């Protein structure tokens, strides 16, 4: 095992090690500043390792890189094996980039039990990165499930008024879904073992082939199981109801992680497992999943518009936004623009929605309320905050030149030109979501940032109290995100190009089936003797007869 292969375990484990050090009794960690600084160093360390990995990563190669494995239960084919391709790496970079910022952001968001809070934050980071690096499906599943535990405590202990209910629903809802996912995984592994003389393996690449050889109705079961867990996580309409509750009750850091990274576990799961494992079932399911995605885009957008709590509005907007993402994943156009766009969308949504949650957290820290009716025109009192709020809203609404647009555009154009699974019938209503996004986000801006200045009454302050604008710490959290937003907006090519090959690989099984079906229909409609020379003359004639020159 070379040093290079150890980089990934190091990146995964560093936060966990820091987390357990935090638990060591001692005076040092009696001070909040020390705890935050220590956790910050831990996450920063992880970020630096991930950057190092990114620089040593061969971006042109679609295969899993920096692979390594530690045997776990050899008899049963279980190994802790890891490896990354560019899809994982971008999501890892998103995670490790956001975590240090979130840690600094949590400095002033609550009082008491800091050790516990940052312990769970660091453990959560380990679990999240673990999910992205796992190449053993059980390893993946363990990390995937384990993310629930820290967040359960973050919401349940540090959340708002209804925190216990929110934590319980969040846990049970997502856990129930992923039990079905687990069943589907076992089913695939069992199929493998029956066809391989009882040898068990949980290596993802091995299982791809096993699952692809399943008959359609088995694939359908597998896909249904996988989607049960992943769709809840995404969350796809109509299994999204846990999300607004969890978001409103979670502390700011929890919301940022939830929106920034955890939701992407669902779409990542679909991309990594559902797409290559069950190509035939995907094609059968695509219209239904696509319909749900489109319904979610529009439904959640309209629900956003009637919210009175800013945070809940942003929470519902995640449901709407992730609808685009799922739509892109199921488009299977010839250039895979939809899926590439979907991965970019995951990164973008993590940045812009995460930043919006941070901005709203800053408001909550000052006023202890998020009711839009109680505040107005805060841009006057807090111009710097107002600037960032408008900036990230613009990113979220898909303004070209910022990151959000590229993902949104690619997912939509992908599903529009999707030759077989989706089509304009899906893309056109989803694109109407762009209008609704403008409606609810600018409604929010109009209520909160613009308008006559109205400062919520805060207990312990006089009526003419004026909130302070963002301090250097808060600005330094938002500036890096803003820079990345602009950079990705004008220069998305490195990201897009690096994704092309791995995504082509993942969607190759489905694309080949689509191509075969297309050829078959062409054969069926074209008489045998003209097959050799597929002339497009008839269409051209038909076209010419319809178009007249206007001049």
């Amino acid at each position: 095992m070379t040093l290079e292969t150890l980089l990934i375990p190091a990146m995964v484990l560093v936060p966990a090690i820091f987390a357990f050090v935090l638990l060591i009794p001692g005076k040092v960690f009696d001070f909040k500043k020390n705890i935050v600084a220590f956790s910050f160093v831990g996450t920063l360390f992880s970020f630096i390792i991930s950057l190092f990995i990114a620089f040593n990563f061969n971006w042109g190669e679609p295969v899993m890189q920096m692979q390594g494995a530690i045997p776990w239960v050899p008899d049963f084919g279980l190994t802790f094996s890891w490896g990354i391709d560019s899809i994982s790496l971008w999501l890892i970079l998103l995670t490790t980039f956001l975590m240090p910022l979130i840690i600094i952001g949590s400095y002033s968001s609550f009082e008491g039990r800091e050790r516990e809070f940052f312990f769970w934050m660091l453990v959560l980071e380990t679990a999240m990165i673990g999910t992205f690096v796992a190449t053993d499906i059980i390893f993946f599943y363990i990390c995937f499930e384990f993310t629930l535990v820290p967040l359960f405590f973050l919401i349940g202990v540090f959340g708002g008024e209804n925190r216990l209910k929110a934590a319980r629903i969040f846990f049970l809802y997502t856990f129930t879904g992923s039990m079905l996912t687990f069943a589907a995984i076992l089913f695939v592994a069992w199929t493998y073992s029956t066809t391989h003389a009882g040898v068990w393996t949980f290596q993802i690449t091995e299982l791809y082939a096993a699952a692809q050889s399943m008959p359609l109705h088995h694939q359908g079961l597998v896909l249904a199981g996988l989607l049960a867990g992943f769709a809840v996580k995404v969350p796809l309409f109509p299994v999204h109801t846990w999300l607004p509750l969890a978001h409103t009750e979670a502390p700011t850091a929890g919301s940022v992680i939830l929106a920034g990274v955890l939701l992407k576990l669902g779409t990542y799961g679909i991309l990594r497992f559902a797409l290559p494992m069950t190509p035939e079932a995907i094609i059968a399911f695509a219209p239904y999943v696509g319909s749900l995605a489109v319904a979610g885009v529009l439904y959640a957008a309209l629900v956003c518009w009637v919210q009175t709590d800013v945070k809940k509005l942003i929470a519902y907007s995640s449901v709407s936004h992730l609808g685009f993402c799922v739509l892109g994943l199921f488009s299977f156009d010839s250039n895979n623009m939809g899926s590439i766009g979907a991965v970019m969308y995951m990164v973008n949504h993590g940045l812009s929605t995460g930043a919006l949650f941070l901005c709203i957290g800053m408001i909550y820290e000052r006023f202890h309320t998020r009711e839009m009716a109680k505040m107005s025109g805060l841009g006057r009192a807090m111009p710097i905050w107002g600037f960032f709020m408008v900036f990230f809203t613009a990113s979220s609404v898909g303004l070209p030149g910022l990151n959000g647009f590229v993902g949104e555009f690619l997912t939509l154009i992908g599903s529009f030109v999707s030759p077989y699974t989706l089509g304009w019938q899906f893309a056109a209503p989803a694109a109407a979501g762009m209008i609704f996004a403008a409606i609810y986000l600018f409604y929010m801006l109009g209520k909160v940032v613009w308008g006559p200045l109205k400062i919520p009454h805060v207990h312990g302050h006089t009526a003419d109290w004026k909130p302070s604008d963002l301090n250097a710490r808060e600005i330094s959290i938002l500036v890096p995100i803003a820079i990345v937003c602009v950079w990705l907006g004008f220069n998305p090519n490195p990201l897009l190009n690096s994704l092309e090959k791995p995504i082509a690989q993942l969607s190759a099984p489905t694309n080949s089936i689509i191509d075969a079906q297309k050829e078959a229909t062409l054969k069926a409609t074209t008489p045998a003797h003209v097959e050799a020379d597929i002339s497009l003359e008839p269409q051209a004639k038909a076209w010419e007869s319809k178009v007249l020159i206007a001049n």
Partner: protein
Amino acid sequence: MTLDFDYAKFIPWFPAIGVIICFICCMKPALRKLAGPACVLSILASFIAACMAYSYVPGVPGSTAAGEGNFAISHLFNWINIGDPEKGGFVANFSYFFDPLTMIMLFVVTGIGTLIATYAMGYMHGERGYARFFAGVALFIFSMTNLVMGDNLLVLYLGWEGVGICSYLLIGYYYDKPIAVEAAKKAFIVNRIGDLGFALGIFLTYMTFGSIEYKVIIPAAQELLAHGAEHAVALTPAVKAAVAQAHSVSPSYLAWIPFLLMLGAFGKSAQLPLFVWLPDAMAGPTPVSALVHAATMVTSGVYMIARLTPIFQLSEYALPVVAVIGGITCLFAGTIALTNNDLKGVFAYSTVSQLGYMFIGVAVISVGGVFHLTTHAFFKALLFLTAGSVMHALAGNLDIRTMSGMRKKMPVTCWLMFFGCLALAGFPFTAGYYSKDLLLGDAIVKGTIGNVPHANWYLVAGILGIITAFITAFYTFRLWFKVFMGPTSWEMGTDEGHEPVDDMEVITDAVAKEAEEADPHHTHHHGPHEMPMWPMNLPLIPLALGAAVLGMIAVGGLGLIAPKWIESMLFNSTQFAAFHPEHSAATDATHHTVEFISGSLAVLGIALAFVFHCWKREWVAVVCKPIKPAINILVGKYYVDELYELLIRRPLHTFGRVLFVFDDYVLAGLVNFASFIPRLAGWAARPTQNGVLQKYGVGMGLGLAITLLIVFYAWLAA
């Protein structure tokens, strides 16, 4: 095909630097005063770069470019590239497209932009958001230059949305006024409705042509329209591939493209049914109304159709529909302007109306469309800025009913606006006269020669335009006579010149005081007064000159430039390359007739306005009395806003509420119900565990009996 001049591709990026400087000025109160000059200089740099690039652009009169092709592309950097561009991959780069149409648009955007920004330095003086304003203006020019220079639909879309957000930010400049916030939001959302069409149009274009680059789609569309006839320039492989792909898809897809793109154009250029945002957008500062909502941004839709003319011909109905919508909007907005009493409101509706003319122009593939865009930019910017001066002098008062005889107080503004009004009214030999009559003449020609499909539609549009010419002259001079003629009287508005500076203000007291001293005209103790020459009235003089003589120069040359400059520019543009205007004695006669009719209608309108609003003002009441109901409808602006509120916004919002209730009770309720099932089962089973020994005994006995029974039956069956 690349240009041998490299600086041209940085034209949009000078204002981008301006944005950064203004942004720094926002943060440092001491630097705040530099924002205005920085913004003006950055736009001026773009203008100079555009002028220097002019002679290198292929197709312009006196071009030094090599004869190959009729456009040049200058590549800056890659933006979104997916797949192999040779095999249907997606390519959208920051490459800039230079042809004569681009140059005209660039001159308008950067040239008029410089003048307006200069004026704004004076107008916005002492405002608390001074630097923020200029950051917005520079960002706007950045987006707008990208819009007109981009070599593919996606950069056009980037500019399109970019000017949209700038418009949002600038309309909402006075962001503590709820009316401004509402107007800004409305502008953005209504524009987004149009942008939906635009986005879908881009998708469909990519689907049919496999490309969204002008250099592919425009020749491909021309090729499709030419039905394989001889063409002057050999097709590139990419164009051939695009043509082949277009043949392979359903013809109805091709026909849909123009209609989708058209929706975007109607949204941005405020045509029916999406015009409702533009009048409200006047809540922004007046220089913004002049720059964004009159001279440049709102003409993007016209530019889009002019640029993509061959694409718009893919459906035989598309251009006639554009013409008719343009004609109807023209009349519709013109009539609203007749009764409007808001100084800026009249000009706002007149902008909508004039944009209608431009749409007629581009729909009949007339030079007049873009020509009118150019002249309109001059005279409408002039009108808005002079209106801004009046508003400034009257401390924000905009009600023209309260103004009279202002010429005595503001003579320079009065006569500057007079030139603008003449041009807007289409008074013979002013700029507006030439451009408007050119496009109306072309519309009538096209509507009467008969070999054109749907000629009647063009004819209808042309006639609507001619009727509106009369209305335009009347409402323009109604305003001018009311405000500047007659006995002198006025009312002051409520603006203090400076907004009150409170402790939240980042401007220090010293800066504010300095502003007060440097700018005494802000104090209103002595009633209205003329604006200072620099920086406010001086930039208006080129605009007034343009409004007066630009038409003559562009058409006749006047010895300054080659005659028929505008025609040779536009007919050398890429999209027009395949068309040659018909010239015959008959068409010339039609043109002269139209010119004569609309010219005399303009004079008649001005005369009527003079009678009713200057000479015998008391007659207005007499004439209006019998037609009161009609006037009420006009004053109510045909109740379009109310209609949209009632039919679209409110039902949608209610639906949102219903969905939220559904979400909260039904969807979440189902989940709660599901989680209730295990508890229910537990509850049902609970009585069995009640600790009573006899019941356990009974249960045990029953169980045993049932088991035995089953075993017994199983044994029997065996």
